[in-house]
Protein backbone atom coordinates (compact mmCIF):
# COMPACT_ATOMS: atom_id res chain seq x y z
CA UNK A 1 0.00 0.00 0.00
CA UNK A 2 2.75 2.41 1.07
CA UNK A 3 4.90 1.42 -1.90
CA UNK A 4 2.00 1.65 -4.36
CA UNK A 5 1.29 5.16 -3.10
CA UNK A 6 4.97 6.13 -3.47
CA UNK A 7 4.94 4.70 -6.98
CA UNK A 8 1.85 6.80 -7.80
CA UNK A 9 3.46 9.97 -6.42
CA UNK A 10 6.62 9.28 -8.43
CA UNK A 11 4.44 8.75 -11.49
CA UNK A 12 2.69 12.13 -11.05
CA UNK A 13 6.15 13.73 -10.78
CA UNK A 14 7.38 11.81 -13.86
CA UNK A 15 4.37 12.84 -15.96
CA UNK A 16 4.78 16.44 -14.76
CA UNK A 17 8.44 16.50 -15.78
CA UNK A 18 7.66 14.86 -19.14
CA UNK A 19 4.83 17.29 -19.89
CA UNK A 20 6.68 20.40 -18.74
CA UNK A 21 9.80 20.12 -20.91
CA UNK A 22 12.20 19.76 -17.97
CA UNK A 23 13.37 16.44 -19.46
CA UNK A 24 14.45 18.21 -22.64
CA UNK A 25 17.97 19.75 -22.42
CA UNK A 26 17.41 21.97 -25.50
CA UNK A 27 14.38 23.58 -23.79
CA UNK A 28 16.16 23.90 -20.44
CA UNK A 29 19.25 25.53 -21.97
CA UNK A 30 17.13 27.90 -24.07
CA UNK A 31 15.40 29.15 -20.91
CA UNK A 32 18.79 30.38 -19.70
CA UNK A 33 19.76 31.77 -23.12
CA UNK A 34 18.06 35.12 -22.60
CA UNK A 35 20.60 36.77 -24.90
CA UNK A 36 19.91 34.24 -27.68
CA UNK A 37 17.05 31.88 -28.57
CA UNK A 38 15.12 32.41 -25.31
CA UNK A 39 12.30 29.99 -24.45
CA UNK A 40 10.56 31.20 -21.24
CA UNK A 41 8.66 27.89 -20.73
CA UNK A 42 10.74 26.80 -17.74
CA UNK A 43 9.64 29.84 -15.77
CA UNK A 44 6.10 28.47 -16.03
CA UNK A 45 7.27 25.05 -14.75
CA UNK A 46 8.98 26.57 -11.72
CA UNK A 47 6.07 28.97 -11.16
CA UNK A 48 3.42 26.24 -11.33
CA UNK A 49 5.39 23.84 -9.13
CA UNK A 50 6.19 26.51 -6.55
CA UNK A 51 2.64 27.88 -6.35
CA UNK A 52 1.10 24.43 -5.78
CA UNK A 53 3.79 23.36 -3.29
CA UNK A 54 3.68 26.67 -1.39
CA UNK A 55 -0.09 26.46 -0.87
CA UNK A 56 -0.14 22.65 -0.37
CA UNK A 57 2.62 22.68 2.25
CA UNK A 58 0.70 25.35 4.25
CA UNK A 59 -2.15 22.85 4.73
CA UNK A 60 -0.07 19.67 5.04
CA UNK A 61 2.45 21.00 7.57
CA UNK A 62 -0.39 22.10 9.89
CA UNK A 63 -1.05 18.41 10.56
CA UNK A 64 0.70 16.78 13.52
CA UNK A 65 2.50 14.39 11.16
CA UNK A 66 2.36 12.50 7.85
CA UNK A 67 -0.73 10.38 7.10
CA UNK A 68 1.28 7.15 7.11
CA UNK A 69 2.86 7.87 10.49
CA UNK A 70 6.25 9.09 11.65
CA UNK A 71 7.29 12.71 11.56
CA UNK A 72 7.78 15.36 8.89
CA UNK A 73 11.45 15.08 7.97
CA UNK A 74 12.33 18.68 7.23
CA UNK A 75 15.86 20.02 7.03
CA UNK A 76 16.23 22.25 10.12
CA UNK A 77 19.51 23.95 9.23
CA UNK A 78 19.30 27.64 8.43
CA UNK A 79 23.00 28.53 8.25
CA UNK A 80 24.77 29.15 4.97
CA UNK A 81 28.05 27.27 4.60
CA UNK A 82 30.62 26.74 1.89
CA UNK A 83 29.43 23.27 0.73
CA UNK A 84 25.92 24.70 0.15
CA UNK A 85 27.07 27.83 -1.69
CA UNK A 86 29.92 26.15 -3.58
CA UNK A 87 27.85 23.04 -4.34
CA UNK A 88 24.97 25.13 -5.74
CA UNK A 89 27.42 27.13 -7.88
CA UNK A 90 29.04 23.92 -9.20
CA UNK A 91 25.64 22.35 -9.89
CA UNK A 92 24.71 25.38 -12.00
CA UNK A 93 27.84 25.04 -14.12
CA UNK A 94 27.05 21.36 -14.80
CA UNK A 95 23.37 22.11 -15.50
CA UNK A 96 24.39 24.88 -17.89
CA UNK A 97 26.67 22.48 -19.76
CA UNK A 98 24.42 19.40 -19.89
CA UNK A 99 20.89 20.85 -19.70
CA UNK A 100 19.74 17.93 -17.53
CA UNK A 101 19.17 18.23 -13.79
CA UNK A 102 18.61 15.12 -11.62
CA UNK A 103 14.82 15.67 -11.39
CA UNK A 104 14.59 16.08 -15.15
CA UNK A 105 16.84 13.15 -16.01
CA UNK A 106 15.39 10.45 -13.71
CA UNK A 107 11.93 10.38 -15.38
CA UNK A 108 13.63 10.69 -18.80
CA UNK A 109 15.30 7.30 -18.22
CA UNK A 110 11.87 5.88 -19.11
CA UNK A 111 12.28 6.94 -22.74
CA UNK A 112 15.34 4.68 -23.05
CA UNK A 113 17.19 7.56 -24.74
CA UNK A 114 20.96 6.84 -24.83
CA UNK A 115 21.91 10.43 -23.95
CA UNK A 116 19.84 10.23 -20.77
CA UNK A 117 21.54 7.00 -19.71
CA UNK A 118 24.98 8.53 -20.37
CA UNK A 119 24.07 11.62 -18.32
CA UNK A 120 22.72 9.54 -15.41
CA UNK A 121 25.86 7.35 -15.37
CA UNK A 122 28.05 10.48 -15.22
CA UNK A 123 25.74 11.96 -12.54
CA UNK A 124 26.11 8.82 -10.39
CA UNK A 125 29.90 8.93 -10.87
CA UNK A 126 29.93 12.55 -9.63
CA UNK A 127 27.78 11.68 -6.60
CA UNK A 128 30.03 8.67 -5.91
CA UNK A 129 33.19 10.80 -6.19
CA UNK A 130 32.00 13.20 -3.48
CA UNK A 131 30.83 10.35 -1.21
CA UNK A 132 34.21 8.64 -1.65
CA UNK A 133 35.99 11.89 -0.84
CA UNK A 134 33.89 12.34 2.31
CA UNK A 135 34.52 8.70 3.35
CA UNK A 136 38.31 9.06 2.97
CA UNK A 137 38.27 12.44 4.74
CA UNK A 138 36.20 10.99 7.63
CA UNK A 139 38.47 7.95 7.98
CA UNK A 140 41.56 10.19 8.05
CA UNK A 141 40.17 12.58 10.66
CA UNK A 142 39.04 9.60 12.77
CA UNK A 143 42.50 8.00 12.49
CA UNK A 144 44.04 11.27 13.69
CA UNK A 145 41.84 11.55 16.78
CA UNK A 146 42.32 7.93 17.94
Amino acid at each position, binding site marked *: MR*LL*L*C*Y*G*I*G*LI*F*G*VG*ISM*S*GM*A*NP*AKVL*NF*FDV*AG*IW*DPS*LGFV*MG*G*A*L*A*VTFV*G*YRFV*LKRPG*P*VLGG*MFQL*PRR*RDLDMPLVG*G*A*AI*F*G*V*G*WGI*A*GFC*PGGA*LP*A*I*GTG*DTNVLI*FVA*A*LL*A*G*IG*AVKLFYAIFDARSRAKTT
Partner: protein
Amino acid sequence: METVFTPVQSLGGGALIGLASVLLMAFMGRIMGATGILAGLLQPADLSDWSWRAAVVAGMVSGPAVMLLVTGQFPAIQVPISTGMLVVGGFIVGIGVTLGSGCTSGHGVCGMARLSPRSIVATLIFMLTTGLTVFVIRHVLGG
Protein backbone atom coordinates in the same frame (compact mmCIF):
# COMPACT_ATOMS: atom_id res chain seq x y z
CA MET B 1 18.50 24.50 -31.54
CA GLU B 2 15.31 26.55 -31.19
CA THR B 3 12.41 25.24 -29.10
CA VAL B 4 8.72 26.15 -29.10
CA PHE B 5 7.32 28.16 -26.16
CA THR B 6 4.84 25.89 -24.34
CA PRO B 7 3.28 27.90 -21.50
CA VAL B 8 0.22 25.65 -21.01
CA GLN B 9 2.05 22.28 -20.91
CA SER B 10 4.84 23.75 -18.80
CA LEU B 11 2.48 25.31 -16.28
CA GLY B 12 0.43 22.08 -16.13
CA GLY B 13 3.54 19.94 -15.80
CA GLY B 14 4.85 22.26 -13.09
CA ALA B 15 1.54 21.97 -11.20
CA LEU B 16 1.85 18.15 -11.31
CA ILE B 17 5.43 18.38 -9.98
CA GLY B 18 4.05 20.54 -7.15
CA LEU B 19 1.20 18.09 -6.51
CA ALA B 20 3.67 15.19 -6.20
CA SER B 21 5.77 17.26 -3.76
CA VAL B 22 2.72 18.03 -1.59
CA LEU B 23 1.53 14.39 -1.63
CA LEU B 24 4.95 12.97 -0.67
CA MET B 25 5.06 15.37 2.29
CA ALA B 26 1.45 14.62 3.26
CA PHE B 27 1.80 10.84 3.23
CA MET B 28 5.50 10.14 3.88
CA GLY B 29 6.69 13.39 5.49
CA ARG B 30 9.48 13.62 2.92
CA ILE B 31 10.94 16.28 0.65
CA MET B 32 10.40 15.54 -3.07
CA GLY B 33 14.02 16.14 -4.04
CA ALA B 34 15.58 14.05 -6.80
CA THR B 35 19.05 14.41 -5.24
CA GLY B 36 17.96 13.38 -1.75
CA ILE B 37 15.85 10.46 -2.95
CA LEU B 38 18.65 9.22 -5.23
CA ALA B 39 21.34 9.63 -2.54
CA GLY B 40 19.25 7.62 -0.07
CA LEU B 41 18.72 4.96 -2.72
CA LEU B 42 22.50 4.53 -3.03
CA GLN B 43 23.11 4.62 0.75
CA PRO B 44 19.86 3.50 2.41
CA ALA B 45 19.39 3.55 6.19
CA ASP B 46 17.48 0.24 6.05
CA LEU B 47 15.26 -1.81 3.73
CA SER B 48 12.07 0.19 4.35
CA ASP B 49 14.01 3.42 3.72
CA TRP B 50 15.28 1.96 0.45
CA SER B 51 11.94 0.56 -0.73
CA TRP B 52 9.90 3.80 -0.69
CA ARG B 53 12.67 5.59 -2.58
CA ALA B 54 12.85 2.79 -5.16
CA ALA B 55 9.06 2.98 -5.57
CA VAL B 56 9.15 6.77 -6.16
CA VAL B 57 11.95 6.44 -8.73
CA ALA B 58 10.13 3.56 -10.47
CA GLY B 59 7.07 5.83 -10.69
CA MET B 60 9.16 8.69 -12.12
CA VAL B 61 10.66 6.41 -14.78
CA SER B 62 7.12 5.32 -15.77
CA GLY B 63 6.15 8.95 -16.50
CA PRO B 64 7.20 8.97 -20.17
CA ALA B 65 5.23 5.75 -20.83
CA VAL B 66 2.04 7.48 -19.62
CA MET B 67 2.85 10.38 -21.96
CA LEU B 68 3.24 7.86 -24.77
CA LEU B 69 -0.16 6.30 -23.98
CA VAL B 70 -1.96 9.65 -23.76
CA THR B 71 -0.30 11.68 -26.53
CA GLY B 72 1.09 8.92 -28.77
CA GLN B 73 4.70 9.99 -28.31
CA PHE B 74 7.48 10.10 -25.74
CA PRO B 75 8.46 13.54 -24.42
CA ALA B 76 11.02 15.18 -26.74
CA ILE B 77 14.64 14.88 -25.63
CA GLN B 78 16.91 17.06 -27.77
CA VAL B 79 20.55 17.20 -26.72
CA PRO B 80 22.32 20.12 -28.45
CA ILE B 81 25.79 19.22 -27.08
CA SER B 82 28.43 16.51 -27.68
CA THR B 83 28.53 13.26 -25.71
CA GLY B 84 31.82 14.34 -24.13
CA MET B 85 30.25 17.55 -22.82
CA LEU B 86 27.24 15.57 -21.57
CA VAL B 87 29.55 13.35 -19.50
CA VAL B 88 31.47 16.35 -18.14
CA GLY B 89 28.21 18.15 -17.31
CA GLY B 90 26.69 15.08 -15.64
CA PHE B 91 29.77 14.54 -13.49
CA ILE B 92 29.82 18.21 -12.41
CA VAL B 93 26.07 18.10 -11.62
CA GLY B 94 26.69 15.01 -9.44
CA ILE B 95 29.44 16.78 -7.48
CA GLY B 96 27.42 20.00 -7.10
CA VAL B 97 24.13 18.50 -5.92
CA THR B 98 25.89 16.22 -3.41
CA LEU B 99 27.95 19.07 -1.90
CA GLY B 100 24.99 21.47 -2.02
CA SER B 101 22.48 18.90 -0.66
CA GLY B 102 19.91 19.42 -3.38
CA CYS B 103 18.93 20.44 -6.88
CA THR B 104 16.04 22.09 -8.73
CA SER B 105 13.36 19.91 -7.12
CA GLY B 106 14.66 19.81 -3.53
CA HIS B 107 15.94 23.39 -3.16
CA GLY B 108 14.16 25.06 -6.09
CA VAL B 109 10.64 23.77 -5.40
CA CYS B 110 10.31 22.18 -1.93
CA GLY B 111 12.85 24.34 -0.10
CA MET B 112 11.69 27.58 -1.73
CA ALA B 113 8.06 26.69 -0.87
CA ARG B 114 9.10 26.36 2.79
CA LEU B 115 10.95 29.71 2.50
CA SER B 116 14.12 27.95 3.72
CA PRO B 117 16.97 30.49 3.62
CA ARG B 118 19.45 27.78 2.55
CA SER B 119 17.25 26.74 -0.37
CA ILE B 120 16.54 30.31 -1.46
CA VAL B 121 20.28 31.11 -1.52
CA ALA B 122 21.14 27.80 -3.25
CA THR B 123 18.45 28.35 -5.92
CA LEU B 124 19.53 31.95 -6.62
CA ILE B 125 23.17 30.81 -6.92
CA PHE B 126 22.57 27.87 -9.25
CA MET B 127 20.15 29.80 -11.46
CA LEU B 128 22.84 32.47 -11.78
CA THR B 129 25.74 30.09 -12.52
CA THR B 130 23.61 28.09 -14.97
CA GLY B 131 22.76 31.30 -16.83
CA LEU B 132 26.39 32.43 -16.82
CA THR B 133 27.56 29.02 -18.07
CA VAL B 134 25.05 29.04 -20.94
CA PHE B 135 26.03 32.61 -21.82
CA VAL B 136 29.76 31.82 -21.84
CA ILE B 137 29.34 28.62 -23.88
CA ARG B 138 26.96 30.13 -26.45
CA HIS B 139 28.04 33.76 -26.73
CA VAL B 140 31.66 33.94 -25.57
CA LEU B 141 33.07 30.61 -26.72
CA GLY B 142 30.44 30.48 -29.48
CA GLY B 143 29.57 26.78 -28.98
